């Protein structure tokens, strides 16, 4: 009996096709039952996320026969009548184990190293385990995959760093301030990215949010959503004495904050550090402001640059992770009980 994988993912198919093959959670127990009852698989786990639909099966059939049956099963389950090319991939043992370990470690994810897939895989496995559709082979393979994923997380830098503009802003704030709990955030212009960045800062402990916007209604609504307070747009400079992080994303055609305006405000702040995040295009903050002492100015390109650098670093770590996975797969296959 061998462990095989069949499925489709963001690498092989567009979202329009993936959603056609997705399994709703309530559909999975019956799908597992029909896989088992049809004799295609003695053990099976179905993973269905927004980026992949995969069946992991321990099958008594020869791989080619198993893949043909599994493909038929997938098509029949979703009543799919379109044409299929290479969108569905099939992986025999031992590459199937290698693939499982890679998926668990986030190496096959759209954002390399992301951790959400680990939880999703665990949930899919637990569902199959509770329904008693897993046995010695898949239990061992999945348990080992979870251990390998944890090992990779601690031993490599694959999950380090921020790969989005919002999380890069949060990470920067944590490199400037000892604890975000003592700092207030000012949101100038209630755009979507500034809202998300403010939310990210709040989730990491920022004390409070002050929102200002040309339209006071929008400022009040966002402040209420974020649990902060709104101030009239003309009065935002007065807030600079209290806040330590400002996120600006207005639609102003020219700079709303320049050196001449900020210099006296910095004196009133007694030179406490100030993080300015300018995500507006055209920019809201004059770049010359960044030359002031204790002022840290980042625009959207700077943040994207950090996120991209992190992504590059993660890609550099892939080779290390692959090596660990190859060793762990070899060890699993060498184990007598597998």
């Amino acid at each position, binding site marked *: 009996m061998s462990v095989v994988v069949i499925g489709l993912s963001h690498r092989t198919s567009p979202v329009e096709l993936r959603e056609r093959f997705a399994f709703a959670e309530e559909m999975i127990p019956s799908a597992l039952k029909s896989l088992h009852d049809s004799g295609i698989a003695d053990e099976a786990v179905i993973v269905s996320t927004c980026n992949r639909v995969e069946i992991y099966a321990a099958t008594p059939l020869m791989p080619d026969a198993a893949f043909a049956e599994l493909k038929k099963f997938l098509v029949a389950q979703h009543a799919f009548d379109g044409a299929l090319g290479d969108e569905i991939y099939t992986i025999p043992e031992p590459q199937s184990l290698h693939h499982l370990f890679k998926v668990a470690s986030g190496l096959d994810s759209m954002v390399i190293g992301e951790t959400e897939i680990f939880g999703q895989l665990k949930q899919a496995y637990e569902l199959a385990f509770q329904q008693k559709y897993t046995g010695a082979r898949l239990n061992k393979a999945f348990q080992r995959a979870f251990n390998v994923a944890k090992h990779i997380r601690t031993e490599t830098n694959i999950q380090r760093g921020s790969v989005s503009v919002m999380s890069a802003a949060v*990470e920067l704030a944590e*490199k*400037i301030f*000892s604890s975000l709990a003592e700092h207030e955030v000012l949101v100038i212009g209630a755009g979507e990215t500034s809202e998300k960045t403010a939310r990210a800062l709040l989730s990491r402990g920022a004390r409070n949010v002050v929102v200002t916007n040309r339209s006071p209604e929008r400022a009040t609504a966002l402040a209420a959503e974020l649990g902060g307070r709104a101030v009239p747009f003309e009065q935002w400079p007065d807030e600079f004495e209290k806040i330590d992080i400002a996120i600006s994303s207005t639609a102003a055609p020219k700079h709303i904050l320049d050196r001449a305006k900020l210099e006296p405000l910095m004196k009133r702040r007694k030179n406490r*550090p100030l993080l300015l995040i300018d995500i507006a295009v055209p920019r809201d903050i004059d770049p010359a402001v960044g030359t002031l*002492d*204790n002022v*840290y100015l980042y625009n959207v390109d700077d943040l994207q640059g*950090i996120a991209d650098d992190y992504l590059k*670093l993660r890609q550099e770590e892939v080779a290390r992770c692959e090596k660990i996975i190859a060793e762990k797969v070899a060890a699993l296959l060498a184990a007598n009980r597998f």
Partner: protein
Amino acid sequence: MAWFTDRHFFLLAVAVYGLSAAYAVFLWRKGFRRDDHVAYFLLLAGFALHSVALGKRGFSFHACPVNNLYEATTFLLWALVVAGLAVGLLPRLRFLGAFASPVLFAVGVFALMPSLDPPHGARPEFSGGLRSLHAATILLAYGAFGLGAVAAGMFLMQQHDLKAHKIRAVLSLLPSIQRLELVTARLVFAGFVLLTVGLAVGHELPRPEGASFFSDPKVLWSAFLWLAYLELLVAHRFFGRSSRRFAIGVIGVFLFLLLTFWITNLYSALHHP
């Protein structure tokens, strides 16, 4: 083993500080991304050898071993290592030792110059509890100032990287710049308190006939140092002096201390009766 003197132990300690300094260069090139404890353990190994050296010399005349420039310098370095190891117990500040080790190595090599350690009798003339307290508090103060300067160096590096949008600033495991500024200020304050106590104790010591406090170069130099650190602390705390200027000031005053302390020692009648 009788031929293996305290100076040999100190030589070994300096060699370990040298290794630690070389490792610090490696860590710096790697962007301080991984805390592998090697820098801390090298410092700990150097500290053990250094302590044996200091202990052997101190036990030989039953007093704090600060009777010539070699002894004063080794004691100063020892205080710096103690402070570095203590602060390094906090994981976020462990790299402080890596930053301190080049200073330890350079000053350690300087201290090993034979002319700084002229032989004296089995028991130096100017020993005693109060003198030991005076010397120990002042040298511990120098150690705190030294570590403050190291923290200030870390602050300036991190601040420069953050301002220049270098990815290294985000990737490194160095503490936030606000924490580094706080650590610098606290170390300088601790040093200032120790220096004040040390100078106050020194005032109570008996003076050689005809010697005056106010014409002694070491006393004047110490008073200048005391004022310089007071100015740094007051300007930073109460007059909103920028963190960068404060850090540069802390490094500048400590460099001045390091470069001039042996000269003033040589010309001081009070310290060389």
